[in-house]
């Protein structure tokens, strides 16, 4: 059978950022996949060197609008390591609380996107509606829905009141109920089972070899979570389990994320009930002495690493960011090999790419010298239609 190369990207309709996949297919089966990234390269690492530490807190938030809080936590932590400053316990608890809120909002967002890709738009509407509840809490506590400006070097900026704590507990009750419903749907709904089981399999050995991170790694049955293995902020004091799945496929990722939601809800409750009293931040000097530090956090998508080097001025000398999607892109290129064209949207969405793009697909037939441009929507419809006629699955 003749080989056909399909470029996917870089323009896109939904919430993903520009990115390009070159996929070579034989019939319906993908034999090779290559990734090209860098469409939204803005040169931020150079910008960090021209701004002060205070300004950089806000710029690190804008590395990514979905995991904004994780990036600013990471930057503040790295700066605190160099300064030798330990934030007060209440500050650390509030920082951890916000990190967990972000996990809830990101996992619900992923659940909706995955539902959309498999043609289950009802799930998209449900989970994004529940996501608004957590955004309301964000707005209540930090003043903004997406970029919070809540973190600062040496703690957090705002305290929470008792009334806010009650509102958080109330929202957690609703979210727990909803999450249990999603777990039921995820484990029993035929639409989900048929589209996700056995799709995008990444074996444990491959996951380790390709340095997968986050839910993708845990769905490949590797018990690794920065929150547990290298506790930061207040995670060392919180009771929680690291969720893994041994199914290795996209369904495993769905189960891992759904069960993590439940763990996160319990962690938030624990934090509110055991919130220490005292200050929320300590004053830190504007200038940071020479030194270097590496900070790691568990973003909703996986391990996020910041490397910071200071030179004694009020501006950093170097800040290197390794975002989780960067680590996961490699295993997507690997997982796509041997999969169906119809499974591309789901496998790529599976890692929850922070920059992923599936809009324009150009199908080129080298032998016949014909080409056909497909939009992402057409590809999605094609994949749904293709599965509908596959009765044996």
């Amino acid at each position: 059978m003749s080989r056909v190369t399909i470029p996917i990207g870089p323009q896109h309709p939904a919430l993903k950022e520009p990115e390009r996949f070159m996929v070579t297919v034989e019939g319906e089966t993908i034999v090779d996949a290559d990734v090209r990234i860098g469409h939204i390269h803005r040169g931020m690492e150079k910008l960090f060197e021209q701004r002060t530490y205070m300004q950089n807190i806000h710029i690190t938030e804008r590395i990514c609008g979905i995991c904004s809080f994780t990036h600013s936590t990471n930057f503040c932590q790295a700066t605190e390591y160099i300064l030798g400053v330990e934030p007060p316990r209440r500050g650390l608890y509030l920082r951890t609380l916000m990190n967990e809120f972000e996990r809830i909002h990101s996992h619900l967002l992923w659940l909706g996107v995955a539902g959309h890709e498999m043609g289950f738009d009802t799930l998209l509407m449900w989970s994004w509606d529940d996501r608004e509840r957590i955004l309301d809490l964000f707005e209540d506590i930090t003043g903004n829905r997406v970029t919070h400006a809540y973190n600062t070097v040496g703690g957090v900026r705002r305290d929470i009141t008792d009334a806010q704590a009650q509102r958080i507990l109330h929202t957690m009750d609703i979210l727990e109920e909803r999450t249990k419903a999603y777990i039921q749907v995820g484990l029993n709904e035929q639409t989900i089972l048929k589209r996700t089981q056995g799709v995008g399999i990444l074996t444990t050995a491959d996951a380790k070899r390709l340095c997968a991170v986050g839910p993708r790694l845990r769905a490949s049955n590797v018990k690794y979570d920065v929150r547990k293995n290298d506790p930061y902020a207040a995670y060392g004091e919180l009771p929680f389990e690291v969720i893994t799945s041994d199914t290795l496929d996209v369904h495993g990722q769905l189960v891992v994320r759904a069960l993590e939601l439940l763990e996160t809800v319990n962690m938030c409750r624990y934090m509110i009930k055991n919130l220490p009293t005292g200050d929320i931040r300590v004053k830190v000097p504007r200038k940071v002495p020479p030194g270097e530090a590496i900070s790691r956090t568990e973003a909703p998508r996986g391990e996020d690493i910041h490397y910071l080097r200071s030179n004694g001025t009020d501006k950093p000398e170097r800040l290197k960011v390794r975002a989780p999607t960067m680590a996961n892109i490699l295993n997507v290129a690997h997982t796509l090999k041997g999969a169906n064209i119809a499974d591309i949207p789901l496998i790529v969405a599976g890692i929850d790419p922070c920059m992923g793009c599936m809009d324009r697909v150009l199908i080129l037939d080298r032998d016949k010298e014909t080409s056909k441009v497909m939009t992402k929507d057409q590809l999605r419809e094609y994949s749904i239609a293709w599965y509908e006629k596959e009765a044996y699955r």
Partner: protein
Amino acid sequence: MLENVVKWSRVKSPWVCHFNSGSCNGCDIEIIAALMPRFDAERFGVVLKGTPRHADVLLCTGPVTGQMKDRLLKIYEQMPEPKFVIAFGECGCSGAVYTGCYNVEGGIDKVIPVDAYIPGCPPKPEAILDGVVKLLTAFKESE
């Protein structure tokens, strides 16, 4: 007569194409959030389209990176007349926090003509609806 019908339908149901020219995703998820049950932009006839060939309005986010500049121009040229461009978010309006980055143009209007600006980092979903309504009102009252 026919022109009036076309104009009426365009005002009643604007089809929007969303294009990310290098933003941080914050604006993009707020655009999707505007279409979800809480805000439900579709009740005003706003439909998000994947292809620019079907769209009336290009909702553009991001400060325009070097790689996306040519693609933004291509997408703009593919849209049928009359076409409108909304610069969405602070960095789409002026570059904002990315001012000084070596790989950004610093705003959508440096590359293509822009009809409306929605500031905010990111703007709330209500702001999207407000911006679209203001743009269409201006279009309705023109000529």
